[in-house]
């Protein structure tokens, strides 16, 4: 009796939880309403089975509970019943599968006119590449990758000269299909934006892809959803969906590959922004904050809060006072002097002098 009631309560509770809880899919911001529809169909079918099977079981547990002198019914099998149940189940399965396959067919064939954006993942930061005016991405090779050439661009390839390289947030225009090419330089990552519904792994040695059409303006979180090491949970970025006009303005302010090579900084419009604010934005966009907290708690690396002037003990037992020279050294060749208690796992990075100044200003002044 108690068990039957418990089962009924669990069924009703589960259904109520589904309808009343505030936790469900985030509001959709792309064309993939069909994915949500498929999900709804599956919910309908499986929910029906869940309720019917469990309520029937509750009924059995109550109705056929042990009674003195009672005997169970003897029936080894019932072919007709089993065949009917098989047929009904198959119909239910087909009802769920068919729309799923149609939507998948859509997913694997991106529209011809989709614009191309490449996302590049490495532990534990995102960067993006746009094909530039010629509409073609230049060729790349992991073997070209250095701190000065973080994308691994082939310097000889003319197609790559006008590629727009973005180390910060990714921008895309609204209502235009986007085909994302995904590439990784070290380990597996996964490009996922909850509001767009689609996701795909980044696999070193391969180029994978996904496509979607953003339909709502806004700024969305990009998360890495394939375990990629200690900094996995902090491998974040943003994708900003702009109007076409805003997008064009943003794109024209970004630096091309040729400009980064020649050191021409014309694109970056940082006028009117304080150095420490520039540093803060850099720290976020270049992924520093994945490992270095700004609130004093130790992360994967030492915290930046109150860093300057601190005396750190190194793994070899010696001490060092953190000053600008040590700070810069730790960025350029991070594994030279590792602080005790931390692993030598920081990738070296390259910043321009101006950027380095901004970063120092941020850590020194804002995070005293």
């Amino acid at each position, binding site marked *: 009796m108690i068990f039957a009631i418990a089962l009924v309560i669990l069924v009703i509770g589960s259904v109520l939880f589904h309808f009343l809880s505030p936790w469900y899919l985030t509001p959709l911001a792309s064309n993939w309403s069909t*994915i949500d529809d498929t999900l709804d169909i599956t919910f309908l079918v*499986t929910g029906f089975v869940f309720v019917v099977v469990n309520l029937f079981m509750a009924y059995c547990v109550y109705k*056929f509970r042990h009674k003195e002198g009672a005997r169970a019914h003897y029936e080894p*099998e019932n072919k007709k019943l089993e065949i009917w149940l098989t047929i009904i189940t198959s119909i239910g399965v087909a009802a*769920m599968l068919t729309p799923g*396959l149609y939507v998948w067919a859509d997913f694997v064939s991106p529209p011809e006119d989709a614009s191309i954006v490449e996302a590049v993942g490495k532990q534990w930061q995102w960067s993006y590449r746009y094909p530039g005016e010629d509409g073609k991405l230049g060729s790349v090779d992991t073997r070209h990758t250095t701190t000065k050439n973080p994308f691994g661009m082939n310097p000889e390839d003319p197609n790559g000269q006008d590629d727009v390289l973005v180390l910060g947030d990714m921008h895309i225009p609204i209502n235009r299909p986007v085909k994302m090419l995904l590439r990784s330089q070290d380990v597996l990552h996964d490009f*996922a934006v909850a509001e767009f519904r689609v996701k795909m792994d980044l696999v070193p*040695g391969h180029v994978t892809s996904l496509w979607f059409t953003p339909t709502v303006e806004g700024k969305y979180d990009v998360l890495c959803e394939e375990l990629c090491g*200690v900094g996995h949970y902090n491998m974040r970025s943003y994708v900003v969906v702009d109007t076409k006009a805003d997008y064009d303005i943003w794109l024209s302010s970004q630096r091309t590959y040729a400009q980064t090579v020649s050191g021409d900084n014309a694109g970056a419009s940082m006028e009117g922004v304080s150095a420490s604010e520039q540093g803060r934005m850099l720290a976020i966009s270049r992924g520093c904050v994945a490992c270095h907290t700004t609130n004093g708690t130790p992360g994967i690396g030492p915290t930046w809060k109150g860093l300057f002037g601190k005396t750190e003990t190194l793994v070899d037992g010696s001490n060092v006072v953190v000053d600008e020279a040590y700070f810069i050294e730790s960025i350029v060749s991070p594994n030279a002097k590792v602080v005790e208690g931390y692993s030598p796992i920081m990738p070296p990075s390259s910043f321009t002098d101006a950027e380095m100044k901004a970063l120092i200003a941020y850590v020194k002044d804002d995070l005293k």
Partner: protein
Amino acid sequence: MSNVAHDAHDYVPPVEIPEMELYHPKTWLGKYIFCQDAKVIAIQYSIVAIGIGLVALVMSLLMRVQLGWPGTFDFIDPAGYIQLVTMHGMIMVVYLLTALFLGGFGNYLIPLMVGARDMVFPFVNMLSFWIYFIAVLVLVASLFVPGGASGAGWTLYPPQAILPGTPGSGTGIILMLVSLSLFIVGFTMGGLNYVVTVLQARTRGMTLMRMPLTVWGIFMATVLALLAFPALLVACIMMLLDATIGTSFFMPAVVSMGQQLDYEGGSPILFQHLFWFFGHPEVYIVALPAFGIVSDLLSVHARKNIFGYRMMVWAIVIIAALSFVVWAHHMYVSGMNPYFGFFFATTTLIIAVPTAIKVYNWVLTLWRGNIRLNVPMLFAIGFIFTFVNGGLTGLFLGNVTIDLPLSDTMFVVAHFHMVMAVSPILVVFGAIYHWYPKITGRMLDDTLGKFHFWTTFLGTYAIYYPMHYLGFLGVPRRYYSIEGTSFIPESAADLNVAISIAAIFVGAVQLVFLYNLFVSYFRGKEAGPNPWEATTLEWQTADTPPKHGNFGEKLPLVYRWAYDYSVPGAEQDFIPQNVPPSVGAQTVDDEDEEDYEQHS
């Protein structure tokens, strides 16, 4: 049977089975440590598996503590967290569930249920356990080496598994791979035993279709495991070579931590194919024994034959066969050729049909039964409920389209825990409550058992049902903490707290179970030979607990299937398998009886 005519020409003389030469231990060491009796090996397997499983349980609680109250407990750092994730998963799936179902239940139940004196290769069986034991020791050792245990996730995906951004990428991962290889070697030895024993050492009259479903489940799971584990072995060996001598089987050209590494051209996806070619059958290696055992629990305690026995057997066989063609549904968003999605979504959803039939038949076994809600029965019905839930959410993830938003989120975690953790563990508990009287001769305490059931059943449902909704929100799995996103509401943190509290509660009540196991061994009620009035052979042994050699002087003869409950006209509501038809509902002529005896 009087109505079956048999002429001389269709008489098939049985092959004589010589009495098996039993191994007789001479020393204490031979009797309790290096013992070749399958029952002792079963207990050894179970104790080690449950012991290491408890370690993994504590690991899961540490993870929940971090997720519920992020930043409160300093001793869990991001590296430690993913090490916990990795070790918890690997231990639970391989070292607990596989070892317990096949090494533990398989060893104890197969010989007893098919009417054999022991496994056919007792020495190899003993080796199997000791290699397993060494594998566990190596795994535990990896926790204490410099750099710690591997933190690559239980899937051990390269490149990260062997690159420095992951904890334990040096010694930790190597020990993990060595331990897995040892496990596979040890398991293969045991597996040969289970298969050959089922095929060759059944007692007279025990046809395949008279075997209890428990034996069917364990048998097919072993066949699956024997064929699937080599895939893991191949992956382990190749990754070991990549990690140690620097080959490039799985490793492409990478820049790790600013360093160009010497690897070139390998494919991480190749590893994933190999891993999941093992990994998906592994799900059924755990599920099929659970299916079998739960069928028997339901039948015994509902006093009714399992409904549609033949369909149940075929469903087990079909599920086992299909489980080899669905592996890539774990890889829909892995970057493999996307066109594979069509094929694997279809096969995956097809496998739902035989699985659904099993569920229907369990429920139909209850229908018009005479249900005794003993503790094992509570767990069996609890299993149906959680398995229906977990099985249905599998239809979300198996359907390639819906996998896009849900893969790599907490929905996946909730799904596979419901179907692969909670459901089999409920069966394990049910099975322990069911067979403990045979193993020890004493009953487990009923009140503590009921308390254990209700807290575990409701508690685990409270953990995992709401967790699906974190997945719908888009909360990723394997995240040390999820702060500062725009799309996850504050309230998700409250839900995490609630889940963590439920998890700690469920973890704590397992102490009651351990207490019950321990105390009942000394003070439990005397069970007698057949406390549940069951038909299968293990309840018909001469001694309880069964002595070495299982069945006294003479092996039992089997005259009927394992499910003669509530047969119309019979005196009692059960007829053991070794009772000749004349005693039951049907009659047998004397000549036949003699015939039968003279060949035994």
